């Protein structure tokens, strides 16, 4: 553990050193923005490749669950970057900028679920100790249909989410390296594969740790600098209170009706609560996060690991509102009310990128707040310029965004690949396959699935942000109820769980299609919170049908009970599965 701490401290120092070096080169005019961006991108991908090679393995245990040897705190860091995708890194601050208080549904929704994960699921998943989530569902509810249903749900949820990540990588590549989006997607694909191909989960975990360190440094630098510039104190998370006060005053002075801090001026309270619930339950039901708790050495450590994961996530999430608030303050104070042809330099620069647009609706030559359209992504991306920072920082942001996207993509890729190679192929088609065959199939599938995601990403779906929200609703409506009931209620039966999962999925899907095509929302609930209909139905059906079907066999009930105790109280059945 000590040597791990030393290695990662060296890594951190090395990264800071690279930043300093690039800054020095920039100051001496030896490198321009493009040079900086290319350096950051390829240096970081190079580091991930090295870690990927160093973590290579031929052991199934290491390929699937990193040999169950990742200390809790590092597992927490890996979970943090696995969790925080390009959406969190680049998009969330923008969401808050646009929605004000309503954005808190995302902030609370995407963090509060970790409490549910800790108390209801993670330690039990670890005690269960196999390779995948369908493994758990099959073990608890029986082979056959439950496993297939779980595989379907896992692939559905993870593949859509993965496509969104690959799209994000493509966008980042094209924006920062000025290459074609479609080419960027394939470059990103290579980045994803170098982190995972040779070492599976072991490589993915350690590259995720590396990516966390990069993304958190990248995220902090611009807004810390801005806080210092605007308030004299470099702690944005504390100082943005001041920004909020100023925003209030400025909004009142400018007659802006939709106040930033005022709740429920974009959504109904019902929608806010519904979305928060969906995001929280979805968090605890996402396969790629759940499997992160197979990789720690013990049940006890899994609980602490969830805590570490949330702490590392918290560092970014409690900073995001600072980005949004400072940007809004800057715009209200220094941009609105100015003559349109003499706006601050950063505004003019960002107009050129298309992420910021100005239309003089009332033709008075002066900018009103409503005349400025700011794309969500611009809130984080333009911060270095607003803070008057050197070009190096913009490149740093690019590296951070890429790290966030790659780390999440890798976690998702592992879920989809193992669902096919382990759950479908090994468990259902060819249980006699040797370890070597299983490894090779997993590796081939990594490439195949990554290619599929890259092909899907070619379409650059417009509603990519919605797709991610739908993934949460689907997870909340399918996995969450079935896993929680499976662990906490011995009476839950196979038929009930399958019925519940399929109902949850179907209802959620149906509502998404209904609300998107008719534009009509029940109780003001939008498609992004569709899971609020599917999840309770899943619980209800699983509960009801359980009573009308025979109770699970005594040995299953005993096994469920055994999950509750970290200690191995029973003799494990002979390793018929050849897993461990």
């Amino acid at each position, binding site marked *: 553990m000590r040597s791990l701490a030393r290695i990662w401290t060296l890594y951190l120092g090395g990264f800071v050193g690279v930043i300093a070096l690039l800054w020095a080169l920039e100051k001496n005019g030896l490198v321009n923005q493009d040079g900086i961006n290319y350096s950051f991108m390829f240096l970081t991908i190079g580091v991930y490749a090295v870690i990927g090679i160093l973590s290579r393995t031929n052991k199934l245990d290491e390929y699937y669950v990193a040999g169950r040897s990742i200390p809790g705190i590092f597992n927490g860091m890996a979970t943090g970057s696995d969790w925080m995708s390009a959406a969190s890194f680049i998009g969330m601050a923008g969401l*808050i900028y646009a929605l004000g*208080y309503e954005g*808190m549904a995302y*902030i*609370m929704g995407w*963090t*509060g679920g*970790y*409490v549910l994960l*800790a*108390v*209801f699921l993670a*330690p039990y998943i670890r005690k269960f100790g196999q390779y995948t989530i369908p493994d758990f569902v099959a073990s608890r509810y029986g082979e056959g249909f439950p496993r297939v249903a779980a595989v379907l749900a896992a692939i559905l949820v993870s593949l859509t989410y993965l496509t969104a990540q690959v799209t994000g990588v493509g966008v980042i590549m094209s924006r920062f390296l000025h290459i074609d989006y479609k080419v960027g997607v394939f470059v990103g694909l290579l980045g994803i594969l170098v982190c995972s191909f040779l070492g599976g989960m072991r490589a993915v975990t350690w590259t995720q740790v590396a990516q966390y360190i990069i993304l958190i440094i990248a995220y902090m630098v611009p807004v810390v600098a801005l806080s210092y510039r605007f308030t004299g104190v470099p702690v944005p*998370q*504390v*100082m*943005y*209170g*001041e920004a*909020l*006060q100023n925003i209030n005053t400025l909004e009142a002075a400018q007659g802006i009706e939709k106040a930033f*801090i*005022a*709740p*429920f001026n974009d959504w109904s*309270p019902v929608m*806010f*609560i519904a979305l*928060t619930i969906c995001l929280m339950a979805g968090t605890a039901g996402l396969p790629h996060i759940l499997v992160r708790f197979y990789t720690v050495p*013990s*049940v*006890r450590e899994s*609980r*602490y690991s*969830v*805590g570490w994961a*949330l*702490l590392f996530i*918290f560092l970014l*999430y*409690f900073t995001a*509102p600072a980005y949004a608030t400072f940007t809004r303050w800057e715009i209200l104070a220094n941009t609105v009310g100015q003559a349109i042809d003499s706006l601050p330099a950063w505004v003019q620069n960002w107009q050129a990128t298309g992420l910021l647009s100005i239309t003089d609706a009332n033709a008075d030559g002066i900018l009103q707040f409503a005349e400025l359209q700011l794309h969500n992504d611009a809130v984080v991306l333009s911060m270095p310029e607003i803070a008057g920072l050197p070009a190096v920082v913009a490149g740093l942001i690019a590296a951070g965004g890429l790290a966030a996207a790659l780390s999440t993509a890798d976690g998702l890729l592992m879920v989809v690949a193992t669902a096919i190679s382990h759950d479908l192929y090994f468990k259902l088609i060819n249980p006699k396959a040797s370890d070597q065959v299983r490894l090779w199939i997993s590796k081939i599938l990594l490439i195949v699935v990554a290619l599929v995601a890259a092909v899907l990403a070619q379409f650059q779906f417009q509603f990519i942000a919605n797709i991610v929200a739908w993934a949460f609703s689907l997870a909340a409506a399918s996995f969450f109820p079935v896993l929680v009931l499976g662990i906490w209620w011995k009476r839950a039966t196979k038929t009930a769980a399958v019925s519940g999962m399929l109902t949850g999925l179907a209802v959620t899907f149906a509502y998404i299609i209904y609300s998107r095509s008719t534009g009509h929302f029940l109780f003001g609930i939008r498609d992004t919170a569709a899971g609020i209909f599917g999840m309770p139905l899943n619980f209800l059906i699983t509960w009801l049908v359980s009573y009308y079907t025979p109770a699970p066999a005594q*040995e299953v009930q*005993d096994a469920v*009970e055994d999950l*509750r*105790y*970290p*200690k*191995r*109280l*029973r*003799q494990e059945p002979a390793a018929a599965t050849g897993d461990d």
Partner: protein
Amino acid sequence: MGLAPTMTPKGRDCRLDSNEPERAKGHFRENGRLVFWLLVVWFLVSYGAAMFVAPLNQVTFLTGFPLGFYMGSQGSLIVFVALIFVYAWMMDKIDRKYGVEE
């Protein structure tokens, strides 16, 4: 309820021995109680605060945060992190009390 003797698995019979049912029930009960109270706090700081945002916003906190907004953006998050570490620490104690720690 003292620490029961270490469990020895009896061949392939996986039943818990005579001491176990009581020990098991006690552990489960305390586990359940802990989770319940943690979730009460969880609910209050997130959904509870969300339902009272407007009045809470009348109160100013720290450097000028309206309290309702603050709870949504930072306050509840801090509590979430604390809740998980409290959970891990207390479950460890409960496990030891019933002799079921690893």
